[in-house]
């Protein structure tokens, strides 16, 4: 899809191509180091995809190992773990997307209603803080909140006279905790995107609405929200295109390798990493390939939807 749009006019003579390379030699040379990195770390590994269809062993190498067809994929989809990690990935991402739209938009709209400049500046930088820390630090914070003996959460429960909960040995809470941590970390950041969109809105529309007697709430519901729609659509499509990709850092940073919790929240990415050690390279390559292919299909679909609703403008 992008190929069709971005490839240059073809069928120029070979000499033309050589001539072009020579004429802009320095510009092309400047691209080489960056492209080498991409080739080394993104394109060369494509050869390794073959492992997904073999029973890889180190002695025979990637192309010498026994060909097994789709066995690795079959194993993934017939094992309970295959469906479980796919389900976990989709659920965590789905709620992450929904809350990751509603919450930042609310913040952006409300920030826009606030007149006090200093207050706005201060609160905005406070809300931006979580973006600057790593998932490991978030993990430490979450430990501080949910640790059984000294954590804040159990302190609050005790205040209400409720028995403490052993959070770190109760898997059932952790999808929610991770989803909320994700919203917490990204809301300040994402609200900036919506504020950017809102700063481009036509002020005269609001003036006209005021003249017509519309109050703030009506202006928000009738003007701001509808005008944010294109931005919301683009951002949603981008995240839907990546819905099969879990956030490795988020999962591992928060639950680490806690054996009690990991199964409940393990996503495709963390499962690939875990199974690399236990179930071998071929199997985990196959899972990774399943993820990439699903990702490719979805992002392609999302891109064509984006083009339809956005006057031919794709996602990238």
């Amino acid at each position, binding site marked *: 899809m992008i190929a069709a749009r971005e490839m240059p006019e073809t069928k120029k003579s070979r000499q033309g191509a050589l001539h072009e390379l020579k004429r*802009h030699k320095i510009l092309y040379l400047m691209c080489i180091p960056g492209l080498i*990195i991409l080739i080394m*770390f993104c394109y060369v*590994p*494509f050869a390794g995809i073959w492992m997904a269809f073999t029973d890889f062993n180190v002695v025979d190498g990637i192309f010498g190992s026994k060909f097994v067809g789709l066995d690795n994929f079959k194993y993934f989809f017939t094992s309970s773990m295959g469906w479980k990690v796919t389900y976990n990935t989709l659920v965590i991402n789905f709620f992450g997307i929904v809350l990751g739209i509603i919450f930042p938009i609310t913040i952006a709209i409300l920030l826009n209603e606030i007149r006090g400049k200093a207050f706005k500046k201060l609160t905005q930088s406070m*809300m931006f*803080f979580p973006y600057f820390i790593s998932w490991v630090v978030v993990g430490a914070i979450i430990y501080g909140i949910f640790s059984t003996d000294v954590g804040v959460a159990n302190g609050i429960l005790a205040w209400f006279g409720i028995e403490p909960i052993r959070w770190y040995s109760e898997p059932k809470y952790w999808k929610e905790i991770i989803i909320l941590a994700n919203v917490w970390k990204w809301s300040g950041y994402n609200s*900036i995107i919506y504020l950017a969109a809102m700063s481009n809105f036509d002020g005269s529309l609001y003036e006209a609405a005021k003249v017509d007697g519309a109050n703030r709430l009506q202006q928000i519901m009738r003007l701001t929200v509808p005008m944010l729609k294109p931005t919301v659509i683009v951002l949603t499509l981008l995240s839907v295109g990546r819905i099969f990709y879990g956030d490795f850092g988020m999962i591992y940073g928060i639950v680490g390798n806690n054996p009690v919790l990991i199964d409940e929240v393990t996503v495709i990415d963390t499962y690939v990493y875990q199974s*690399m050690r236990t179930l071998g390279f071929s199997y985990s*390559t196959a899972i990774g390939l399943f993820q990439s292919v699903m990702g490719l299909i979805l992002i392609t679909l999302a891109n064509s939807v984006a083009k339809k609703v956005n006057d031919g403008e794709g996602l990238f």
Partner: protein
Amino acid sequence: MHANGRLQDRLVSGFAYAFITLFALLCLYPLLLTLSVSFSSEQAIARSGYSIFPQDFSLDTYRYIFVNSGDRIARSYVVTIVVTIAGTLGALLLTSMVAYAISIKKLRYRNVIAFICNFTIIFSAGLIPWYIVSVNYYGLKNSMLALIVPSIFNVWNMFLLRTYFAHISPSLYEAAEVDGANHFTIYWRIALPLSKTALLTVGLMYALQYWNDWWHALIFINDRDLFPLQYFLYNILSNVNAISSGRIPSGASGSITLPAETVKMAVTIITIGPILFLYPFVQKYFVKGIMTGAVKE
């Protein structure tokens, strides 16, 4: 009607202040909690749990960490600083060169180059092939390069920089070209100096990425001497028990409680360190970057 409208306006504004205040506090609260615990005494924490105000204010935890693992933290700090500086400078150079080249409209194959970059976003071989190639062919196991090179070219950042470069008037370049300057000279002498803010923005984004990275260490590094800070913290957190059974500082009696809770929080503060002091001053550049990225050319 009018009075009613004004009342509603005031309600909206009141709600806005309340909501924003609450969420802003919620965003900073964990930091204050972590700070306060790290300055509390372990006994007080064991007695009454975490609290936002330091209890029995003490520097014991930091002293304990300094005595026990000061060397290790110092080494991790050095690793992180070297990786962050080298990575950021290298990444800025590589990224800006490609961004500059494909911002020149005369370059016929710039769309081919853009496609090569874009494709890596939409399809990848996955972790395992990437890992095998990196370890077996590029020798990145237990090498500091493993923390720098794989993330030295970020396609999003490249397109962000291209957007900035595309805004520079071509007439500035043309004058230099007439004077016989080649494109590298123009890039170095004209494009880069004109894009200082953009470079600072993207540079800070790279720096934050390198500072906070522990995933590459998890994948590639076994050698404790090469642990970056965040991975050092990760190990402490996931080996809570290991640290409580660690050596007791010389001269201390056996009855002393090991400051496990406060240690975790103090190490957390130590790893955030510079971000804590820098982020209020640099956040405006991140805002600028996000806004540029959000509004496509």
